[in-house]
């Protein structure tokens, strides 16, 4: 076990990083560690956790803005928001259960550091879209801030957003400021059964092109749907294609009606009421349909029209089960474990169809030996190395977490 540091203030963190930078000691950065099994394993001599940097430092419900110390748990933040009838627009997904980590443990800093978004992203945008400002310490042990707390800000480069999705390799975030939105008055889901992938994805695209503001658009293959906890949906032995609407009550019922009219050629739709809607999308948010097993889990981004073709093409090489989110532009794909994680085939197929893929779940030895993140084009790789050197010239922050030798 490496030396564990729990700085409780920015200057303490700065002190730890300064010491490590001077001696070129690698640091593993974690929040609660719920995503430690994702990405490439980091061999840190020192581990820094942000969990002692906690608390909500600013919350203005009338301005839809909150600031929190990076180590504040998401569950705490969501409880505080819910008490004022508000929520995080991007519904961050919890990969803990699917990767053998704890459930509900993630910290808000890590949510932005990994740009974790869930189903509602198709309506309101990703985590990065709601990030307004950050404070942090980079690998040079400089304390800095970027962005701010106001909704519109183009003063200098958008460094805060630029740090989202950098997985702790550029800076340790100590505080994040983000936009929140009100809870909708109600929510409903309509479900179509038994559609093959290509028809289901066509349906999702038709729905997304209507001005009804679908806030969730997913398709679960039959073998995936049977893992749902929802007793009614689990036992049907059919694929499930679901659309969520969230709004005030009369708008939800009016829009539901319009949606069903527009989609009637795809069959008769079932409906989930408000309570069932919360349960169903809650399950998807925990990725409960992709439970932790000794199989591999991939996350592939592509265009909705390409998604079913891409999955079919991968199936020519290996068995694969798919859960499509974001109207089909995101595929969670489960494939059998192999020494190279199916990397060669999956990356080739993704390159042909367009998109990018990340290996989410695999044994540490596999994650250490294959490319977990999408390999970069040569110019992007050059920029990536440049950016890393700008923030962390000694290469001490989470070395190797995203790419070997970086």
């Amino acid at each position, binding site marked *: 076990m490496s030396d564990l540091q729990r700085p409780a203030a920015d200057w303490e963190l700065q002190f730890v990083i300064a010491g490590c930078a001077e001696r070129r000691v690698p640091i593993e950065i974690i929040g609660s560690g719920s995503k430690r099994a994702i990405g490439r394993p980091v061999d840190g001599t020192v581990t820094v956790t942000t969990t002692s940097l906690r608390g909500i430092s600013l919350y*203005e419900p*009338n*301005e*839809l803005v909150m600031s929190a110390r990076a180590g504040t748990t998401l569950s705490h933040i969501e409880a505080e928001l819910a008490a004022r*009838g508000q929520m995080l627009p991007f519904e961050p997904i919890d990969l803990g259960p699917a990767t053998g980590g704890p459930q509900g443990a993630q910290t808000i800093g890590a949510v932005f550091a990994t*740009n974790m978004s869930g189903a509602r992203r198709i309506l309101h*945008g*990703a985590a*990065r879209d709601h990030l307004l400002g950050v404070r942090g310490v*980079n690998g040079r042990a*400089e*304390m*800095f*801030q*970027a962005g*701010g*707390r*106001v*909704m*519109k*800000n*183009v*003063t*200098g*480069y*958008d*460094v805060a*957003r*630029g740090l989202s*999705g*950098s997985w702790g390799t550029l800076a340790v975030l100590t505080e994040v400021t983000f936009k929140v*939105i*009100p809870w909708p008055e109600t929510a409903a889901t309509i479900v179509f059964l038994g559609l093959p992938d290509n028809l289901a994805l066509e349906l999702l*695209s038709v729905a997304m*092109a*209507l*001005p009804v503001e679908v806030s969730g658009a997913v398709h679960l293959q039959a073998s995936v749907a049977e893992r749902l906890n929802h007793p009614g949906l689990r036992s049907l032995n059919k694929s499930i294609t679901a659309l969520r609407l969230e709004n*005030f009550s*009369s*708008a939800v019922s*009016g*829009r539901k009606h*319009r949606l069903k009219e527009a989609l009637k050629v795809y069959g008769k739709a079932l409906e989930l009421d408000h309570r069932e809607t919360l349960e169903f999308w809650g399950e998807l948010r925990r990725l409960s349909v992709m439970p932790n097993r000794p199989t591999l889990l991939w996350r592939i*981004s592509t*265009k909705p*029209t390409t998604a079913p073709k891409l999955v079919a093409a991968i199936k020519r090489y290996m068995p694969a089960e798919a859960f499509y989110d*974001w109207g089909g*532009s*995101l595929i969670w794909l489960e494939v059998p474990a192999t020494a190279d994680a199916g990397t060669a085939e999956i990356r080739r197929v993704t390159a042909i169809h367009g998109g*990018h893929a990340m290996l989410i779940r695999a044994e540490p030895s596999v994650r250490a030996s294959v490319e977990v*993140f*999408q390999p970069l*084009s040569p*110019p*992007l790789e050059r*920029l*990536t190395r440049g*950016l890393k050197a*700008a923030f962390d010239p000694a290469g001490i922050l989470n070395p190797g977490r*995203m790419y070997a030798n970086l």
Partner: protein
Amino acid sequence: MTLSRMPEPDQAVLDRSSAIIKDLEALIGVDGVISEEEGRRAFEADALTAYRQAPMVVVLPRSTEDVSKVLKYCHRNGLKVVPRGAGTSLCGGALPMADSIVIGMSRMNRVLDADFVNRTITVESGITNLAITDAVSAEGFFYAPDPSSQLACTVGGNLAMNSGGAHCLKYGVTTNNVLGVKMVLIDGEIVDVGGAYPDAEGYDFLALIVGSEGQFGIVTEATLRILPRAESARPVMLGFSSCEAAGQCVAAIIGSGIIPVAIEYMDRPAIAVCEAYAKAGYPLDVEALLIVEVEGYEEETTRLLRDIVDIARSFDPKVVEASTSPEHSARIWKGRKAAFGAMGRISDYYCMDGTIPLGRLPEVLSRIAQICAEHRLKVANVFHAGDGNLHPLILYNANDADEARRAELAGAEILRLCVSVGGCLTGEHGVGIEKRDLMDVQYTPSDLAVQMRIKSVFDPNWQLNPGKVFPLSALEASRASAAADQAA
């Protein structure tokens, strides 16, 4: 005005100008190069007209390859490059230097692909903002960011400035609506960042490129999100006898759980000027006017407007006028959309763009009035109230040097005020040359160093749009520390 100092032109470059022009003509053809004085003069300023400087030469590429060839040449020869869209920047972002090459993107204005099933459009960066929506509206779609300059400004300029518009309260600004770009780096290399699928592969370079004010590279193509247009959109006008009441009403609407598409604010002087120009039917006896727009299906907008009016009632509005027809809506918007133009007809003005936390609105508005009075100047306010993005227009006479100077001082004081209440210098217009020397009001030296190092990653010799965004003093400090880095 006491203008911000630009970097000294390089005499050696000016001496070589005719050879450089010949080389450029050989690279992309004679008809792609503007070198005669009169032609260059057309590029001497953007919409911040207090600053003027014709460039050494203007290049008008027709393709990404043209841009790549020109940049490679500039890189090899150590030349300064200023990217330019339509030149509507309000902060001097497109201002040339005497020894610079302006790359004007106006000829690259095609729609390359409109994909209605996947809801994306790919365009060349010289296309105007409005032309994007025009290209997709027949299919029921639109492109959300809508700067008031949308008839003229280009998507390349929008990306460089991360531009916003009235409808950004609901749909976000440019950065929230772009999926990918094709960009040419200073050494001529062409890089694709993002694409028609969500989330970055690796670091979010797209986030850094959007808002980089033409300093990271030249964007030649962009893939943008298009959205299905709501069945109807309807505004309501709410007039109040105090700006406090209007400000509280904005907070109450947002706090109630309704997110309108737009909440625009005008104060008494602005109302008078807009009404005189546009005959929009604005009330002339109120201190503040809000235009609140909602959208959705017919029955929904009716209900939302009713809710908004109910909220407004507790702030004792003097005027409540909900739109009853599309013509009525157009009339209500007409005055607001023409605001800058209308103001320009009666006076020169200096347009500020600070953003503040909404809760501080009444206090900040009264301080702005006070600051302008102290400088013996008039001010009108027209702005995006929903997100706290202020546009105080300081009225002055450009031919009166003293008045111009006072306008500039008042402007700087207003921006300091915005920062001191937790806001920022600029919400959508950018830093450019105009706010460059105020950057250290908002940022510490290490905050600025973090930003400047990112610039060096993309453009190590600072050839792209130099002299903008950062105070020249910070720049010199960063050069010294970069040299120290190298030595270490």
